[in-house]
Structure formats: structure tokens, C-alpha cells
């Protein structure tokens, strides 16, 4: 997996202190990282904080980045690690419940309702299972790429995906029935 010349150039310029180059990298990956953080936490507020923290962390550690992997894979790894360290304190849990309740209240269409149900189901997975689903199903990474981002073997990814899918199928079977009708 090799980074494009343009991306490599911008990373090197960023490493040499070119803030505009780093800003362009942020702009390219901001939505992707924010979505991943939302999938991992189920909270828009926490996703905002974690996405920002991901890029701040990348900015600090940029000198240590080697262009053997894609910049995006490196960002995924930082984001997932931050999200895995995200602790469900009592306050956070309450905030998340309030946010989900708010989203349900605001739901005007079935589609929005489905989104909330799906996110609730994702939140019932273990964080590592959730990371595996987020990276492969949502971000389109291969098992090998996801394994690299999560610092584990491909076999571990496959097993986490297998258990995560089994749980999600059970939790979302009603949603499927609704769609079939």
C-alpha cells in the first residue's frame, strides 16, 4: 500500500513546517476521521473532540511518520487508539444517552430512526469489534489494512468481524424485517 506522490509531498512539506500543507491534509481527511470517531463513540460531541485530538496528535508526532504506509492508515491508527482509550465515565454515558434520546426525539423519518438504531447496536459491541466494523464496513479498509491500523493480525480482525456481525445480525433483525415489508 503506497501513498500517492501528492500526499507524500504534502506530508514531507508538513514535516518541514509547512502549515498550509498540513492544513490541506486535515481538510482531506477531517470528515473521514470524524465519522470514524462518531461510529466508535456514538456521541457527536465526543467525535468532535476526538477528531480534533487525532489531528493534534498527528501534528505533534508528524516527525515520526514514515511514508511506508499511507497517511490515512496512520491517522486511522491514531484515531482508533484515542477512541479505544475513550472511557465511558458516568458523565459521558449520561451525555450519550441524552444525545441519543435527543436524536430519537428529533427523528422525523424512518431513515433517521434506522441510523439511531444502527448506532445503538454498534455501541453494544465491544470497542475492538466496533473498530473492526468501522474500519472495514464503513471506511472500506481491507482486513490487512485494518489489522495494520489496529496493530493486530489479520486473523484477529477476521474473528472480531465474525463475532461483531453475529451480534449485529441479532440486534438488527427487526430492522431488516421492516425493510422487507
Amino acid at each position, binding site marked *: 500500500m503506497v501513498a500517492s506522490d501528492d500526499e507524500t509531498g504534502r506530508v514531507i512539506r508538513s514535516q518541514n*513546517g509547512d*502549515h*498550509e500543507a*498540513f*492544513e490541506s491534509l*486535515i*481538510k482531506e481527511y*477531517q*470528515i473521514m476521521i*470524524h*465519522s470514524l470517531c*462518531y*461510529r466508535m463513540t456514538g456521541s*457527536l460531541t465526543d*467525535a468532535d473532540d476526538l*477528531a*480534533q485530538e487525532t*489531528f*493534534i496528535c498527528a*501534528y*505533534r508526532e508528524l516527525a515520526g511518520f514514515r511514508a511506508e504506509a499511507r497517511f490515512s492508515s496512520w491517522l486511522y491508527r491514531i484515531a482508533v487508539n484515542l477512541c479505544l482509550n475513550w472511557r465511558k465515565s458516568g458523565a459521558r454515558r449520561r451525555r450519550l444517552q441524552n444525545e441519543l434520546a435527543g*436524536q430519537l426525539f428529533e427523528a422525523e423519518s424512518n*431513515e433517521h430512526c*434506522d*441510523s439511531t*438504531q*444502527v*448506532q445503538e447496536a454498534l455501541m453494544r459491541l465491544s470497542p475492538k469489534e466496533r473498530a473492526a*466494523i468501522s474500519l472495514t*464496513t*464503513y471506511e472500506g479498509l481491507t482486513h490487512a489494512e485494518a489489522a495494520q491500523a489496529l496493530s493486530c493480525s489479520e486473523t484477529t480482525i477476521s474473528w472480531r468481524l465474525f463475532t461483531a*456481525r453475529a451480534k*449485529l*445480525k441479532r440486534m*438488527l*433483525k427487526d*430492522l*431488516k424485517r421492516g*425493510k422487507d415489508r
Partner: protein
Amino acid sequence: MKNSELDEILRTAPPPKQPTEYWDEFSGRVLRNAALGRHAREVVDFHGRARRFPKLALGFGVAAAVVVVLFSVVRLDNSRSTSIMERPATQNEFDGAKKYYEEIVTLFPGRLAAIIFDKRGEHLLLKDTSTAAGSLPVYLKICGRSGCEQVVTFSGQQIPINGELCDVLVGHSGEIIVTGPTFWWSSGTGARPGERYRIEARPLQTTG
């Protein structure tokens, strides 16, 4: 349910959308916080070193206590003679402001309107559009009844002084003018009796 059906259900559930302005400002927020975080880390590093060298920390503590006592005595003395705190800018303050400016301006080229150093720390005033480009930075130290603040800004910018928005202008002959809703000051005329602020201003010659 097949895996493909599950994936379809998962993919048809998008995350909540953020407004366009959120994404427009996102990178700026990250760079700003990254820059401020670096300065905070310098402070943390200092405290970390202090933990490793307790005698050094004790020495610093005693020195700080002496400085606080001296400062209180000087302040008490000043408050007897005048109600405005008059503390001329030291070379250290000027150099510190200049160094900070040189670091920050590269992060926000053309968007930096002012840097304010007050008792709560450093604050950046940024503009969405390129407004400050072309004009040279100026350094101001403004002392009033509530204390002093230092500002690095540009001609034509507005800065808050004690809750009032004031304009900073540089005249043809290089004099620096500060005008607010209730006062007017110029480096050409200097201090005037009865004024509310003691202001010092000079161009900030940068190395960049």
C-alpha cells in the same frame, strides 16, 4: 441475514451531518489548539523537571515568593501615587511577544488580526479573510486600573481594551494611534494628564 444484507443496513445509516461552517473552521481550530498545546507542554515540561529536581523546585518556590512580596510592595506603593498601573514594557516582554508572534503568524498567514497577552494568558484574534497582509506588526502595552495587557496587531485592526473596541492605526510618519469610543492616544503626542490608560507602542521588527 447475509453479511451483504447486514453491510447494506449498516451503510444506509449515515452519521449526523455537521454544518459546512464547522468543516470550514475545523482545520483552523486544530492548528490553533496544536500551537497552544505546544506552549502548554513547555510549561508542563518545566513542572516535570521541577518534580525531578526538588531542590531546584524549592529554590524557584522561594524566589517566586520573594518576587510576589516585592511585587506587592511595589504595587502598594504605585497605588498610592496613581490609580493607573504604570509598568513600562521590559525588553523580555517585548522579545517574548515578538517570538510568540513569529511562531503564530506562520500558522495563520494573512488571517491574524491580533495577539493579546493579558493576565489570563494569550488570545488570538483571527479573521476569516486575509485582512492583515501587507501591514507591519506593532507592539502595544496598555495599562489601566485593572492591570496591563500587551498586544501585537496591525494598522487598521480593532482590539478590545477593557471591554471597548478600539482602532489601531499607523500614520504616514510612523506614529501609532489608538482610538476608542471614549479616548484617543497617539505615540506622537505621548501621555496626557487625566488619560485613562498608559499606552506604549512601537513597531515590531520581525526577523521573518
